[in-house]
């Protein structure tokens, strides 16, 4: 049995808004990073779904997903390195403490 495309998109949308919600509300920088991954993966799901349902003969969507996963991995590595350095400097990773860049 075929699952209609809207179901996939619905899942992706839920993931996306969960991510945004988490990004705005979580106080832990690591949790914010995980929320960011949720947003990225929601987009990846969308790519795959559109490719699979709308242009089954093309492969760009899949490739773009792979590319995006790769970039996300790199970005996560950098972000975690930054977070470790933040921890070393201020002994916690609460985002409200990271306000050195204000006016």
């Amino acid at each position, binding site marked *: 049995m075929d699952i209609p495309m809207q179901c996939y998109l619905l899942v992706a949308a839920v993931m996306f808004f969960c991510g*945004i919600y988490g990004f*705005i509300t979580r106080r832990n920088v690591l949790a*914010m990073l995980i929320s960011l991954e949720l947003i990225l993966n929601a987009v990846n799901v969308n790519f795959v779904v559109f490719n699979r349902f709308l242009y089954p003969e093309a492969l760009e969507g899949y490739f773009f997903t792979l590319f995006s996963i790769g970039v996300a991995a790199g970005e996560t590595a950098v972000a975690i390195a930054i977070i470790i350095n933040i921890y070393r400097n201020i002994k916690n990773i609460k*985002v409200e403490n990271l*306000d*050195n860049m*204000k*006016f």
Partner: protein
Amino acid sequence: MEYSIFVLLLPMMMFLFIGLLQGKLKGQSAGIIGTISMSLTTIIAYAVAFDYFFSPESKIDGIYQKIVEYNWVWLQLTENLHIDLGVLLDPISCMMLVVITTVSLMVHIYSLGYMHGERGFARYYAFLSLFSFSMLGLVVATNIFQMYIFWELVGVSSYLLIGFYYTKPAAIAASKKAFIVTRFADLGFLIGILVLSFYAQSFSFTDLTAPGGVALSSAAGVSFLGASAAAWGLSLIFVGGAGKSAMFPLHIWLPDAMEGPTPVSALIHAATMVVAGVYLVARMFPLYIDAAPEVLPGIAYVGAFTSLFAAVIACFQSDIKRVLAFSTISQIGFMIVALGVSGMGGHDGLGYMAGMWHLFTHAMFKALLFLGAGAVIHAVHSNEMAEMGGLRKYMPITHITFLIACLAIAGIPPFSGFFSKDEILSACWEFSPVMFALMAGIAGLTAFYMFRLYYRIFWSTPTDVSHHTPHEAPAVMYLPLIFLALVTLVAGFIPFGDFVTSDGAVYHIHINWTVATISIVVAVVAIAIATVKYMKEKSKAPQNPLNNVGAFYRAAYRRFYIDEVYMFVTHKIIFAYISRPIKWFDRQVVDGFMNFLAWGANALAARIKGFQSGQVQQYAYVFVLGVIILIVIALAL
């Protein structure tokens, strides 16, 4: 004569070299390096002058031509209006090369002794090189704009050297005064350049002084306030020259400029820079004759009045350098008169030749007088005549050389001043008997005040030597004196008319014996009066020279209150009624508006800076809200 460019390059390199390395050059080394390079420059300049005057190429049909040795287009403004830099050789520029390098070399050598151990010794030599470079650049200028550039450069070096003792408030005030007064006059010069070049469509001297005044033919019929455009342009150029050459009423800076080191006064404020105005008029002379001959008598009257005025003041000054400064002003007045009464070519051009000759001889003997005065000041540590007297026993060489220079400036044959002054008086005689009588009288005054100075320094009551015995200057100081004295002895026998004349053709100088007899008699009588009055003077001049003296003496000692008039006009009128309202407008309106803008931006920033909280999540929240609002708007549309 391709090597003539080195006359300019060497001093410029020396200025950069000594100026940049002044901290590294220990002891006398800066002075020795500067003197060696100046000797080379002098040799090159002599070679250039010799080549020019004696090689057949510089003459066509026995008439000296202007040779443009180098000419680089430096600033191309339009197709035919461009500012060039180059080297122009003609009789007067070659003569000036000789004068400047000779006096400059003597001053370089002399300063080795005079400035020995001074703070800023290397800086002094760097500035001397800068001055020599600028002055040489001025005289070889191929166009009037190059002259203007170097004109300002000599002004700057004069400013730097007057203010050499920059810890002395009087020196700083004097340097500022010199700069501002000459700068003010240079404004006239600049406007004059613009007027002339507007009509002539060229800055070049060869175009401007082309025969027949063709350069200004397009200005024919143009007049402004009753005078022709050419007359305006040339008068304004003379204003610039008058500022540099200290003509009344722009003379006020020169006496104060004596605050600088004495060798500087000898070089800049007696021999070279102050005659730049004379040189400028001589350079533009064909244009004056052809385009605006009515300006020349005016120039002569200005020169004659200045000469008389300065000679009268010189009789009453008590500071020896001030006497020499006023004497310089007076002698420059002679040169200006000579140019003003001159015509063009042959016998009519006598005044031009005489003015240039007097420039030459005056540079030598006035430099000698200043250097001699420097030796005296060096020995007694004072500028005041009251502190001197009877020095002939202690300083025999200075005494003899000073006497030679005094005789030269007084116009006693066979010293050089007699010949050149006699030619000026002959030229005045042909202009008008009144002018002749006036100038002969001034020549008498000159003899009187110079011998007053001479007797007060070397004779009269001997100075108090109980705590400090004056001694003769060291050899580096008296050798230049001897050299300049020798030049003063022989310069009168140079057949000057063979070299420098108004039209370049040879003019055979012959002494007009009527004129010569009158001038000798006047000079001898004046010297005799000075001898009777000052030679055996028993009582010294009182400490305060204004005690028990008449009103005229008081006024002359105070230089006829010209400085006070300037002070009154600037402070009480210009500052109070023009500068102050302008200042108010500037502070309140112009600055006020700008301050209001700055204050407004500041206040606005204080209110909105809270948005920049540094909280990443707040930014993200606002961003998401913004996106949602955009979506809602997009859907609603």
